[in-house]
């Protein structure tokens, strides 16, 4: 089946200035998973559905190419996936019996790269993104201005991803755009 192009709140907007590149990712399928992630039932489900292990340190994420698994809380994970989110959610509910919700359209994802990225983020987030504290493979739910975000560190160059709620996407994007002039 052909995937139709699905709208995102910023219509793939970009910022490209000296030392900072920001781009909104295309529509990303996301599923929020609840359950006891220490149980073998959950581990089996993750293995069969996504080919992933359930062991994940707090504030960390793992990716196997097709899917990315984020820690959101002791009994909560978020996945980005290339598969059909509805299918994964219903299979999760069948196999595990706890909640799984397709949250693809709750939020959008901004990819931030360039040497100024950390300065831009700390201008709005009360969170320490120093490379000694926030390493590649770590994620954190925090605040950017007034928007709740899920921040993740993907490469040392650096490359960060900021997941922000749909209704806050324009706000966060404008915030970044204005701050980029000062940092």
């Amino acid at each position, binding site marked *: 089946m052909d995937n139709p192009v699905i709208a995102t709140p910023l219509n793939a907007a970009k910022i490209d200035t000296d030392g900072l590149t920001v781009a909104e990712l295309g529509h990303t399928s996301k599923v929020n998973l609840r359950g006891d992630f220490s149980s073998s039932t959950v581990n089996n489900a993750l293995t069969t559905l996504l080919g992933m292990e359930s062991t994940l340190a707090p*504030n960390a994420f793992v990716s196997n190419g097709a899917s990315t698994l984020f820690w*959101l809380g*002791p009994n909560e994970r978020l996945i980005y996936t290339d598969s059909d989110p509805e299918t994964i959610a219903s299979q999760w509910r069948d196999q595990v019996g706890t909640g799984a919700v397709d949250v693809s359209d709750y939020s959008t994802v901004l990819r931030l790269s360039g040497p100024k990225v950390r300065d831009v983020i700390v201008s709005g987030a009360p969170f320490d993104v120093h490379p000694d504290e926030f390493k590649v493979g770590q994620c954190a*739910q*925090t605040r950017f201005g007034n928007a709740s975000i899920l921040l993740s560190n993907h490469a040392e160059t650096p490359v960060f991803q900021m997941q922000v709620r749909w209704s806050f996407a324009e706000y966060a994007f404008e915030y970044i755009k204005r701050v980029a002039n000062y940092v």
Partner: protein
Amino acid sequence: MFIINCPYCGDRDQTEFSCHGEAHIPRPTETAKMTDDEWGEYVFFRTNPKGYHRERWLHDHGCRRWFNALRHTVTDEFVATYKIEDPRPPIPGEGGRS
């Protein structure tokens, strides 16, 4: 500005959190038998101490989990934060009273 230790996420800035009043107030079980005075006690009356206070906190912008904190209401010192199911940490200087 100060740092609060979320039992799930670790040290985070206070602006990620919100406080929701006194902790360890059990919900009444036999509500149909309660008098107005008992309801008033449950709903409105708090210890409101000048000193160490056990409070419910929510990590709004983080993991969105509830936890308890032992905080001094004058100095804003956070003695401890602990999960809902954890034992209560002792109040400092009171011989381990919890």
